[in-house]
């Protein structure tokens, strides 16, 4: 199985990632997920800055991909996470899975996102009309991990 992990300020192209994932031998299914910068309900978000812990972040993402690999039979896992300042609707994160069958690809994609949200050292700061605020961790993200334990 191949694992590709990138932490970058540049944007990514979902079509290119998909093309690469579908090239894997014995691949019968590709599932992709993209996370975007969501506008606030009152439309006051100017931008969002993503900070991370260089070195640990990459290791954490690889470890999460390896955990997924040990639970399901996967052909390839791609994880891309952007850092730096992003505007509403910009892409933040990409997870792509190639596998023989769809069930493993869907499950692994959700598993990776749930673990990424709770274990990978990224932090979001929102820049809004009323000031700058660090985003707090959500209990629902933590609860999402329970189904895999």
């Amino acid at each position, binding site marked *: 199985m191949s694992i590709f992990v990138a932490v970058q300020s540049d944007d990514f192209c979902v079509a290119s990632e998909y093309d690469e994932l579908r090239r894997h031998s014995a691949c019968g299914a590709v599932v992709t997920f993209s996370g975007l910068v969501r506008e606030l309900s009152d439309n006051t978000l100017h931008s969002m800055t993503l900070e991370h*812990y260089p070195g640990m972040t990459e290791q954490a993402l690889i470890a999460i991909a390896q955990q997924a690999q040990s639970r399901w039979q996967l052909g390839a896992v791609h994880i891309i*996470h952007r850092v730096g300042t992003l505007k509403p609707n910009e892409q933040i994160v990409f997870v792509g899975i190639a596998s023989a069958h769809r069930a493993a690809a869907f499950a692994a994609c959700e598993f990776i996102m749930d673990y990424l949200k709770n274990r990978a050292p*990224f932090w*979001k700061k929102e820049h809004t009309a009323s000031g700058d605020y*660090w985003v707090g961790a959500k209990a629902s993200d933590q609860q999402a991990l329970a189904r895999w334990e």
Partner: protein
Amino acid sequence: MIKILFFAALRERLDCEQYLLSCDGKMLQVADVLQQLQSRCQNWQQELSRTDLLCAVNQHLVPLTASVQDGDELAFFPPVTGG
């Protein structure tokens, strides 16, 4: 020396990115280091007493009972919010 790093909201509230601490060749628990840092001032006492504080030794998440020694990289940070 132990290199101690702070990230995100914690870094801003402490107004400190990196701190060096000598442990004279002794093995310490992360909790001991935390206690030394808390004793610096009231602000550090308050910020480093938060129950949701996470910690990593050499870039791996660990509990406060983990050991650290000279040459290690120790990091403290708030709950992560990526994705």
